[in-house]
Structure formats: structure tokens, C-alpha cells
């Protein structure tokens, strides 16, 4: 049997389509974990990135924090969090958020910093308040880059959320971990396919959002 026939077997088994261990509920769990982690990471990374990028202060601090966060291994953080906190969603959110904050934070900071100073000065000269300068001039220009940071974060979260299953949570990782211990390739390959497809859907979504919200004038060629 090659990998493709495992995939086919996995998806054609009706038992994989219902109940708490069915594809719909595992997929939903995975999306929930991912969205929650991305939302938290964005809630931390975007404001800090926008503010530091706008003022131009704190760039070094951001680089240090981001590099430190990036250096922390997700799997180890997860085990540590579970041992210290116990069960639940929180110990899984910790490694995912730590993973996702650096790309959001650094890209947002760099995106705002990289905005051409001429229109920013012009806006100030026209008497715009700082908040309007940020949101009406800098953010629209920086948006493609900011979105790319969010996209990187989202992709890493979707793929890393699989390790939640190691500490008894759900999500698509369930199939991979269960398949490993049950020696069931169908489940491993099926689960991996679902995760990969979800990643590619995430990419497509970000592409679509980019087309919608980025002003045609600043769209990258």
C-alpha cells in the first residue's frame, strides 16, 4: 500500500466521519485552537508592533524578545506547561502563542518602519493627528507585510497545534498520535493530509483577504 491508498482508505471509512473522534469534530477543534492562538498572538503582537513601528522606539527590545521567544521549543513548553498547570486549553495556548508572537510582532514593526517617510511627513504637515497618521497612512501601506506576518504565524500554529494531542487534547494531531501508538498508518497519513490541507487553505484565505483589504495602489507586484 502506498501513501495515497492510505489517504483514500482513511477518508472513505465512514467511521471517521462521525462522533467525538470524527473528522468534523477534530477539524473544528483544530481550527478553534488555531484561531484562538492566532487571536491572542495578534492581540499582543499587532498593537505593540504598530506602536513601536510608529514611534521608532523599542526596536532592539523587540528583536531581543522575538529572538528569545523563537528560541523556545514548542514541544518542551507544552510539556512544561502541562506539568505546571495541569490539563486544559491554557497549557496548549502557551507554546502556540509564544510561537506566533514573533512573526506578528517583528513583521508589523518592520512593516511600519519601512513605510516611505515622505507621505508620512506630508500627512503630518496637513495637520493629521498621530493616530490618524498611523491608521490612515502607515497601516494601509504596511498592510501587505503585516498580513504576511500574520500568515506566517497562522501557518506555524496550524502545523504545531498537532502536538496538543500529546497532552490529551483533541485536534487533528489526535489522528497522528493515536495512529503512532496504534500502529495505524491510515490514521497518521489521514491526519497529516488534513493538517496539510488546512495549512494550504489558510494560505489561500490570507491571499484572498489580501486581495480584499489591501489597496490596489500598494499591492506588491
Amino acid at each position, binding site marked *: 500500500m502506498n501513501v495515497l491508498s492510505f489517504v483514500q482508505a482513511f477518508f472513505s471509512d465512514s467511521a471517521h466521519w462521525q462522533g467525538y473522534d470524527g473528522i468534523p469534530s477534530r477539524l473544528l477543534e483544530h481550527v478553534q485552537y488555531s484561531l484562538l492562538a492566532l487571536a491572542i498572538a495578534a492581540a499582543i503582537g499587532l498593537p505593540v508592533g504598530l506602536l513601536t513601528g510608529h514611534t521608532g522606539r523599542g526596536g532592539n527590545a523587540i528583536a531581543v524578545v522575538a529572538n528569545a521567544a523563537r528560541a523556545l*521549543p514548542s*514541544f518542551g513548553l507544552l510539556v512544561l506547561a502541562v506539568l505546571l498547570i495541569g490539563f486544559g486549553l491554557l497549557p496548549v495556548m502557551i507554546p502556540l502563542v509564544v510561537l506566533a508572537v514573533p512573526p506578528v510582532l517583528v513583521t508589523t514593526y518592520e512593516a511600519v518602519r519601512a513605510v516611505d517617510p515622505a507621505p508620512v511627513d506630508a500627512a503630518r504637515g496637513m495637520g493629521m493627528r498621530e493616530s490618524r497618521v498611523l491608521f490612515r497612512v502607515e497601516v494601509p501601506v504596511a498592510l501587505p507585510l503585516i498580513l504576511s506576518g500574520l*500568515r506566517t504565524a497562522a501557518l506555524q500554529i496550524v*502545523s504545531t497545534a*498537532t502536538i496538543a494531542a500529546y497532552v490529551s487534547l483533541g485536534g487533528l494531531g489526535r489522528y497522528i498520535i493515536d495512529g*503512532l501508538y496504534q500502529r495505524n498508518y491510515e490514521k497518521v497519513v489521514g491526519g497529516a493530509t488534513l493538517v496539510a490541507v488546512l495549512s494550504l487553505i489558510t*494560505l489561500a484565505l490570507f491571499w484572498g483577504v489580501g486581495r480584499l483589504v489591501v489597496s490596489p495602489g500598494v499591492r506588491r507586484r
Partner: protein
Amino acid sequence: MNGFFDIPSDLQHSWAGLIGVHLREALLPVAAGLLLALPLALLCNRFRWLYPPVLGVTTVLYAVPSLAFFVVLIDWTGQTELTVMIPLALYSLVVLVPAIADGVRSVPDETLSAATAMGFGTVRRYLQVQLPIAAPAVIAGLRVATASSISLVSVGALIGNQGALGNLMAAAQKYDRPELAANAVLTTAVLAVVCDAALVALRRVLTPWMPRSGRKRTAAPREELLTKGAAR
């Protein structure tokens, strides 16, 4: 036996030993990825139509979770370090190929013409002119690949003690000893920081004409690279 450095005997390595294994399992794949990415990027620049499909394939590979990759490979490569290293090498391509290809492509045409006029062939020009000028971009790619590789090795613990410092994390869970997990997390983080610093130092050696404190250059391109790789 519950101190910070009391490594359980079933890991069969001292703390220093685990560090050594971890570095080997993390860095060899990046080196292999680099060796693979160099010709791939050259081909992609030579035949432009090749670039999108190559990026597409590496992106799809990158989207496969590491654990699933390991499990599927066990049948071919057994429960060995190699099983962990192959996926990591493939993952590094998603960063390295665009880093090298875009870096090399950014070399000005006049420079290339000059090299050609001096009698450089394609391969020699690639190795001696384009690659060195692209060194900052290549190193930026290496930094992303190395950081992610160092973190991902840990997952190898789930296929039977193949995760180096990750084994320590799994042991922390198995023996309910949080201090071991803390040790593993901190040690891994320090390894990542040290390797990153080494690559920055390497860039300074290779590109003495560039400003020494290139913070803007060192922080920004890394995220850009990863998103670029994943984007298309």
C-alpha cells in the same frame, strides 16, 4: 535523583551528550538542505518556469506536520536519527531555496556582465560572484532554518528517544519531573541563541563591507523569507 541535571538513565546520554546529539540532529539537516538548495536555486534562476513549482512542492512538504513525517519514515529508515533529520532537511528548503534564489537574482546585471567578460563560466560565476554577494540573504535564510530545526528536533522524542533534548522533555512527562522540562526548554533556547549568534558572526566575516550593527537587516528579512516561501 530529582535535581535539575539528574538525567534519567534511560536517555543513555549525559546532559552534554544530549546537547551534542541535539546539535547534530538539528544542524546536519540544515547543512544538507543548503547543499540541496544551492543547485536547486541555481536551476530556478536559470529556468524561471521551475521556480513556482519548486516553491509549491517545498511549501506542501512544509505543511506536513513533523510527527506524521517521522511516523511514515519509520518503515524505511527505522527508529533512528535519520528519520528525524530527513524531514528537517526538507523543511529547510522552504526557506533556503527562495533565500538563495532571490538573493542571487538581486545581483546587478553589470556585475554579472563583468564576470562574464572576465571569462567566468556559469558555475564559476554562480559560486564565486553571485553566491558571495547573496551571502547576507543566504545567511538570513540559514538563521530561520536553524532556529526552526533546533526546535523541531525535540518532537523526535515521540518515536522512541530520537529527539535529543526532546527526550528530556518526554522523560519529564513520564517521570512527572517539571525541572527536567525546564532544563530542556532552557538548554534548547540557549542552543538556538548561540547558533543564531554564530551565523550572525559568520555573516560579518563573509561580508566585511556591510555595517556591523545591521539590526534592521538581521531582524526583518527572516520573517520575510519564511512568508515568501510559504506564500506562493
